[in-house]
């Protein structure tokens, strides 16, 4: 079934080409089907070689790839159903569908790609097409979010490009292998972290994320936050020498970065009022958590086999849950009927994200425990515990905001609702399928205090609304961006004050040159030759020439 692999990327591309046709509005819903089929049917660890394609293409699925392909395809399918229904007949709906399918194609392709160039191809396609999703709404806020997203994404892509070139040079080929990655130099690793770190929302490269994910339409937000940010982790797991050699310094660095991300995203998320922004910060925080874990893996190669599988599980859980949250939020905003059901679903998902027992979150957390246990610093477990607490609080905040959301009833939400229900089912079944019963309980220790704390906060804000107002919305989405925006303004002001000088200088120079040119060319030339036609002048010159000649002959 290897032939399914090329289809994974080609099919959505074909869809993007065909979707402008009015009758094919439903194509986004079916774009990820070959990927789903491939994830289930394609044999593991065998690859399809296409040496003539690009710089030599190798497609294939390994264990991690299959997990990724599975949850990515699932999420894209559900989101695709939402997108197709939501955008049908809307203004620019077809444009949205094109970019949606392009981003889908890139996302799926980079998972099945086993060589650097195709990974980059998928990554770039996904990154650029997402821009179209982010700015779809066309409001000034959307455009700003898109601009920030694009600038940072391009920085990331360029850094990734440099990293990939360095890795390719190191490998001597474009197909990476664990052995080949041994001894990778620091520049490559640094660039790789930088390049993918943007996509992952690693602090301080995250400010685009809380802006862009909420700006996109719901279906796009779901895949952005659910599927697309996860590819950074995939890239790291594939291209860093994990399990080959210990890189303690880099491990420390990543751990620190993860902690910083966690510590930054959770509090900032708590004071947001837009549910999508809250979810976006939650994603940033989760990525921070994953980066932290990756740091541990990088420092200790022995953890690799177990750790990679655990991370895969965790990522799959988060992708489905976060995607589900976004999509549910969409239903909450738009669908008229069955709102209690939607709220119940959202509650379930929020619980799962907080890691409540019997949810996928519990299983994922359980899987990741050994990694935590081996962390370099003992207090990391504490920090992670605190973050879990904060996550619970964040989810409570989300539910609170989601309950009070203003609804705009729209017809025709049966199919997306059903699809969402399916997704809920998958999330619910997640622990049953993938986790041993021992892991179902998880770690309620952080959940219960969290819930209690949330209730406490609720009470407090009820009693003193001013207290809530003092915090809510004090930090704008994109936090750090607010700090550097004045820098940009100063630079602009500086340029504005300097520009006239420069321009004046240039104009002066140009005017001087023009004057010179006029002096040389424009005025009718006075005829200096007139002199050369006077006989005495001719005679003098002539005789002088003769004298010189004679002297020269006799010299």
């Amino acid at each position, binding site marked *: 079934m290897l032939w399914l692999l090329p289809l994974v990327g080609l099919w959505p591309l074909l869809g993007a080409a065909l979707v402008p046709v009015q009758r094919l509005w439903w194509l986004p819903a079916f774009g990820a089907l070959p990927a789903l089929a491939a994830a289930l049917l394609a044999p593991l660890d065998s690859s399809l070689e296409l*040496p*003539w*394609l*690009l*710089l*030599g293409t190798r497609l294939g699925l390994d264990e991690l790839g299959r997990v990724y392909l599975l949850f990515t395809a699932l999420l894209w399918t559900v989101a695709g159903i939402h997108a197709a229904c939501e955008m049908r007949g809307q203004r620019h709906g077809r*444009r949205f569908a094109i970019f949606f399918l392009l981003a889908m194609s890139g996302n799926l392709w980079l998972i099945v790609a086993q060589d650097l*160039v195709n990974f*980059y*191809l998928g990554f*770039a*396609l996904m990154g*650029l097409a997402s821009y*179209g999703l982010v*700015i779809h709404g*066309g409001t000034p806020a959307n455009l700003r979010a898109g601009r920030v997203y*694009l600038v940072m994404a*391009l*920085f990331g892509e*360029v*850094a990734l*490009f*440099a990293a990939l*070139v*360095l890795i*390719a*040079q190191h490998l001597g080929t474009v197909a990476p292998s664990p052995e080949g990655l041994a001894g990778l130099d620091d*520049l490559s690793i640094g660039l790789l972290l930088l390049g993918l770190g943007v996509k992952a929302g690693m602090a301080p490269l995250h400010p685009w994320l809380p802006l862009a994910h909420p700006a996109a339409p719901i279906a796009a937000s779901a895949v952005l936050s659910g599927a697309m940010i996860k590819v950074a982790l995939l890239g790291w797991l594939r291209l860093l020498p994990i399990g080959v050699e210990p890189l303690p310094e880099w491990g420390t660095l990543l751990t620190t970065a993860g902690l910083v991300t966690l510590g930054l995203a959770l509090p900032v998320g708590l004071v947001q009022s837009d549910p999508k922004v809250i979810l976006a910060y939650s994603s940033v925080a989760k990525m921070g958590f994953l980066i932290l874990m990756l740091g541990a893996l990088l420092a200790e190669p022995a953890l690799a086999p177990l750790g990679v599988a655990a991370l895969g599980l965790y990522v799959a859980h988060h992708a489905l849950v976060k995607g589900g949250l976004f999509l549910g939020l969409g239903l909450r905003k738009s669908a008229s009927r069955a709102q209690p059901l939607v709220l119940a679903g959202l509650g379930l998902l929020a619980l799962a994200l907080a890691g409540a027992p019997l949810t996928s979150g519990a299983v994922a957390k359980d899987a990741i425990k050994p990694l935590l246990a081996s962390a370099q610093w003992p207090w990391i477990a504490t920090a992670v515990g605190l973050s879990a607490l904060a996550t619970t609080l964040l989810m409570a905040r989300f539910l609170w905001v989601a309950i009070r959301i203003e609804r705009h009833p729209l017809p025709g939400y049966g199919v997306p609702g059903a699809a969402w229900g399916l997704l809920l089912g998958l999330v619910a079944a997640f622990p049953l399928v993938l986790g041993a019963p021992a892991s179902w309980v998880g770690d309620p220790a952080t959940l219960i205090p969290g819930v209690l704390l949330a209730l406490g906060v609720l009470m407090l804000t009820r009693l003193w609304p001013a207290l809530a107002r003092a915090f809510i919305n004090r930090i704008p989405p994109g936090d750090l961006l607010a700090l550097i925006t004045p820098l940009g303004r100063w630079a602009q002001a500086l340029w504005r004050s300097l520009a006239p000088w420069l321009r004046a200088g240039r104009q002066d120079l140009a005017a001087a040159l023009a004057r010179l040119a006029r002096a040389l060319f424009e005025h009718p030339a006075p005829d200096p030759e007139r002199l050369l036609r006077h006989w005495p002048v001719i005679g003098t010159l002539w005789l002088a020439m003769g004298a010189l000649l004679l002297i020269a002959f006799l010299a």
Partner: protein
Amino acid sequence: MTLASLLPVAIILSSLIPGLAIFLVREESHLLRGLLNMAGALTKLALVGVLIWGVYHGHVYEARLALAPGLELVLSADALSVLFVSLSALLWLVTTVYAIGYLEHSPNRSRFFGFFSLCVSATVGIALAGNLPSFVIFYELLTLATYPLVAHRGTPDAVRGARIYLAYTLSGGVALLIGAIWLQSLSGPQDFTQGGYLSNLSEAHRGALIAIFALLLAGLGVKAALVPLHGWLPQSMVAPAPVSALLHAVAVVKAGAFGIVRLVYDVYGVEFAHALGLLGLLGALASLTILYGSLRALAQDGLKKRLAYSTVSQVSYIALGASILGPVATIGGLVHLVHQGIMKITLFFCAGNYAETLGVHRVSEMDGVGQRMPLTTLAFSLGALGMIGIPPIAGFVSKWYLGLGAIEAQAHWVLLILALSSLLNAAYFLPILYRAWFRPAPAAWPEESPRRGRFETQGALLWPPLITAAFCLLAGLLAAAPFSPLEWVELIARREYP
């Protein structure tokens, strides 16, 4: 004269003869002129096909004509010539179709197409020139043949642009001439030789060789638009779109870049040039040009001007590739010769389409053109994304190999240049794409042409950019396939670095 020596001559004549004949064609004879044009272009393509086959199989094609004692006109085809010849032949055909569509209703068509063909003849001559004097001859002929094309419109602006073009290129030509003669006086008459022919000159000539390199580089740099010799390029944007396309993608700019490649590889020899410390100079100049061109492009509102500065920047990738020691960087630079050509010609075709169909000349007028002309804008997008280096479009392949080569040669700073350049490229191309696709279209276009074919514009204007855009995509997608530009360039690099 044997068949083997006839082929290069025939390739030049296949555009020269139609070109001269076109001058005599009456202005109203559309059909005859079109026939001559297409016959020439197709013949050339067929001949080039034979040439590719022959050179691949190791045949030697060479024609010699003694001009004076010690001065020979040599036409010969090696793998590098074939690369450039095929590019010119292919793009000439496409551009001819486009030009016929573009200029069908403007005056002075016979003159235009005559010089158009002469221009291509000179370009092909440059590609096939087998020694430095022949190169110089065709290089100057190219200047001559291009001048009327730049001045073609006859507006004061056009004449001024052409004058500036001429001032630059002729000055460059003089530098090139003196350099070439000086070199010949040291080395004696020599053909281009893979690996260079100067390395056995005595140490005493070291200073002279450096000075000669500087002279030759100055001469070639004018056409290749190396900063600070690039001033003519944006000015010559007044020419009709097919001319700009040809100028930027195939003829003038490329001739300069091709000359630099010849100079480094087949005159000095890359290792000898490295030993003389000349590659650093070239690399620095190329890097400066790459960044400066992009920065200037950012500030341009005129679409063609922006593209022109983009050319300034992009063509220096070729020089950059030549300035890095090692086969991989050579591949990157040489393949960009082709890749930049097809991408830039696509962009110019599209710019011409906007101008001709909608009267849109400025970036600020491009709001919503994607809705009015989706196919053209699609082609434009492909070209622009390729320039940025997004895979799987051709430009990515060039950048990839340049980067690999730079690391191989321990020149990590090149990566930084590539990264900065990509970002700058994105900064001046993506806003255009944004406007074209996402902004609402205005109620009325500046000057919409009443002639409209079955599609968004006339067929002769629409097909060429679509075809070249497809080339851009295929050159990248099938980079590793046999007979792709990349594979051909690898053949050259293998021969240069045995």
